[in-house]
């Protein structure tokens, strides 16, 4: 019996798995980004080990200065700043995707860690579950 199993019995909960949420779509043209956030919060509510990764147009989800008043859609970008309260603190961004779009870390609404290709490869390989949006 290892400690982890003992803890599970005491807490009555299931095992904690590592969940990676891969985000590759811009925020308002499709529903993917908003759905991803919903599922991330569900994962966090079940006290799973949650990581978010932003690749390709997914980096636009966390661009500063979003104002959706004129398109009559909810601006959900402030939610990314609230993720910390749900213990979602691992936010990673693909360096190549940022650079291709002329963006830097300063353009982003939340503190992130910018990763190169090899780091992202290792991150994906290390996960129990990957959910792709």
């Amino acid at each position, binding site marked *: 019996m290892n400690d982890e199993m003992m803890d599970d019995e005491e807490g009555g909960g299931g095992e904690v798995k590592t969940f990676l949420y*891969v985000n*590759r779509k811009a925020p308002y043209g499709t529903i993917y980004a908003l759905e991803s956030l919903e599922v991330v919060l569900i994962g966090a509510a079940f006290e799973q080990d949650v990581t978010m990764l932003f*690749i*390709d147009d997914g980096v636009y989800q966390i661009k500063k200065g979003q104002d959706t008043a004129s398109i009559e859609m909810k601006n959900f970008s402030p939610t990314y700043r609230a993720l910390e309260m749900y213990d979602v603190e691992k936010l990673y961004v*693909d360096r*190549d995707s940022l650079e291709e779009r002329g963006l830097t870390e300063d353009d982003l609404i939340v503190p992130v860690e910018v990763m190169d*290709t090899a780091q*992202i*490869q*290792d991150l*994906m*390989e290390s*996960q*129990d*579950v*990957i959910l*792709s*949006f």
Partner: protein
Amino acid sequence: MLHTVNKSPFDRNTLDTCLRLAKKGSVILLIEDGVYAAMQGTRVESEMKQALEDHDVYVLGPDLKARGMDESKVVDGIQTVDYGGFVDLAVANGPVQAWL
């Protein structure tokens, strides 16, 4: 791990991003509109041949058939699997990243 790609390489950058971020030795399976990338004579053929040097690459037969794509014209080295084969790949190579 297993990477699946379900978009046409002529419509989206899904395949490119998959190939850039799939670690050497990981397995790639082309499904749905992703199967177009498996065919000989396309502009992504050299990219697929390059991928075969670092990965086992598979294509889902039923999706080829549904689209009228001839299995005999798949790039050499890409292996065709059926639904059962898809399941076996997922079980043997988890976790799965679905590139959409």
